[in-house]
Structures are given as structure tokens and as C-alpha cells.
């Protein structure tokens, strides 16, 4: 009796393993971090482009206003592509765009803005990339839509037509 149970268990076991691999190997291996929404805006103190002194995050984010925090850099090619959408969004009075300049040279960043236009209400400087990690970002560009001190939507990669209209729809 024992001998008969064992092969069936083994066969079932291998079937299970086959199924796991059959499903598992088809999955994509590239992982994008889970986006935890409704998280509080991280608290930070950073230097900005205009002023020498540091800006506290508490002074920036007001309760009843939409904000888009955009992580960008002059060396980032997709940032160029998304810039026109930021300029378009800037026409909407209901949203303020805050730039987080990621690991950039100040002069290059300034040239970038002069050339492409400045959609940013405030431009913060993240020289060593640690502030971006507070936001849970891992690349440029990334954008966070903020309302009532909470991140309500996160965009990995450059903004496009679809995300632009989505943002317009949300802040209406």
C-alpha cells in the first residue's frame, strides 16, 4: 500500500513544480516598485534655485491645492520629451509644478530651463539623489501628483498625452 501512495505523491509534486515553472517563467522579470498611494508627502529641507537658503517642505505644500512634483535632470533625455506637457500643465491655475533637480550641474539645469521654458513654481536641488529616495523614486523622470499632503498618483517615466489628460481630469 505504501509503495502505491509514494509514486502518486511524487507525480503530483512534479506536476505542481511543472505548473509553477510554466507560470513563473512566462512572467516578466523586470520589477517596478509597488506604488503605495495615499502616502504622506515626505518631510524635507532642500535648497532651491532662486534662494540661497533652504526650503522646508511644510512651507511649500498647502492643503487645498494640487501639486505635481517632477523629478528631472538636464542630462535626462526623456525629460526633454515630457517638458512640453509640463509647460501645458503650467497653464492650468489649479496645479503648481515643483521641480526636483536630480543629480545635475546647476549651470546645465539653468540652461535647460532657459532653453525649454520654466514650468516650475519652485525648483529644488537634490545634489546627491537622497531626496528622491525619500519619495520612493528610482529614476528620472518621475512625477507625483499631490493633494492634501498626500501622493495620490505616481507616474514612472516621462509624462505623455495620456497621463497629461488624466491629470487634467483629476484636478478639474
Amino acid at each position, binding site marked *: 500500500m505504501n*509503495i502505491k501512495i509514494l509514486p502518486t505523491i511524487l507525480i503530483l509534486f512534479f506536476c505542481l513544480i511543472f505548473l509553477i515553472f510554466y507560470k513563473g517563467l512566462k512572467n516578466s522579470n523586470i*520589477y517596478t516598485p509597488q506604488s*503605495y498611494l495615499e502616502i504622506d508627502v515626505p518631510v524635507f529641507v532642500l535648497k532651491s534655485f532662486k534662494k540661497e537658503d533652504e526650503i522646508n517642505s511644510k512651507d511649500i505644500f498647502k492643503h487645498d491645492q494640487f501639486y505635481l512634483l517632477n523629478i528631472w535632470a538636464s542630462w535626462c533625455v526623456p525629460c526633454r520629451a515630457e517638458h512640453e506637457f509640463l509647460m501645458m500643465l503650467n497653464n492650468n491655475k489649479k496645479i503648481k509644478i515643483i521641480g526636483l533637480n536630480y*543629480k545635475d550641474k546647476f549651470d546645465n539645469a539653468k540652461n535647460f530651463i532657459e532653453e525649454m521654458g520654466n514650468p516650475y513654481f519652485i525648483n529644488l536641488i537634490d545634489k546627491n*539623489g*537622497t531626496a528622491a529616495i525619500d519619495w520612493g523614486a528610482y529614476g528620472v523622470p518621475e512625477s507625483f501628483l499631490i493633494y492634501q499632503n498626500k501622493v495620490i498618483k505616481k507616474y514612472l517615466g516621462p509624462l505623455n498625452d495620456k497621463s497629461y489628460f488624466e491629470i487634467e481630469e483629476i484636478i478639474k
Partner: protein
Amino acid sequence: MKFLNFFIILILTLNLNISKAKADVYSIENKITKNIRCLICQGQSIYDSDSEFAISLKLVVQNKIKQGFTEKQIYDFLSNKYGEWILYDPSFNKNTYFLWLLPLLIFLIGGAIIINKLKIKK
């Protein structure tokens, strides 16, 4: 014989030095950075990687250690931001029961098979 004794003592003292040197290399910072996955170059730890993201993250870990965060607090901080996947060593929770208990299960099944065989031989 005297020469041999001297030699053994010499080797022992040198060994002690090695273990001390190793303890320095495997500092808490290295231990933590080796356990954190680089999200840009997936498959590498941030300890191994030199991507912009990894460099920043190493800096963050350094700062956190300076601020007095424990290893676990740093892991919690990062998995809050990026999800559990950023840690190489998965924690024991309801999603990972199967992962952690499977080797034990296989071991038990293997043991059962061996006992079965022995019984049959008898």
C-alpha cells in the same frame, strides 16, 4: 619541535589578524547594502552596483546609520518606499510561508522516503 611550536603560534596570530580584518570589512553598512537590491540593474545588490540610484542609496544608508537607525529600521524604511522586493532576504510573513517552509517540507518528504525504503528492506 620547538620550531614547530613557534610556527603554529605564528600562524595562529596571523589568523587572528585576518579575522579581525574581516570583521572590519563586514561592517554593518556593507551587510545592509549587500542585502538591498538595485532597482536599476536588477540582479545586483547596491553594494555591487555603481549606478546613480545605487550610489544615492548607499549614501542614504550611511546617513541612516549615522542617525542611529538600526538595521531593521533601515529595511523597514526602504521596503515602505519601494516594496518588500528591494530586500534580498525576504522576511517571514504570510506571502513567504511557502518559500521558507518548502525546503523543510522537502526534507521531511525525503526522510519519509528513506524510512519507507528501510522498512521495506527489513
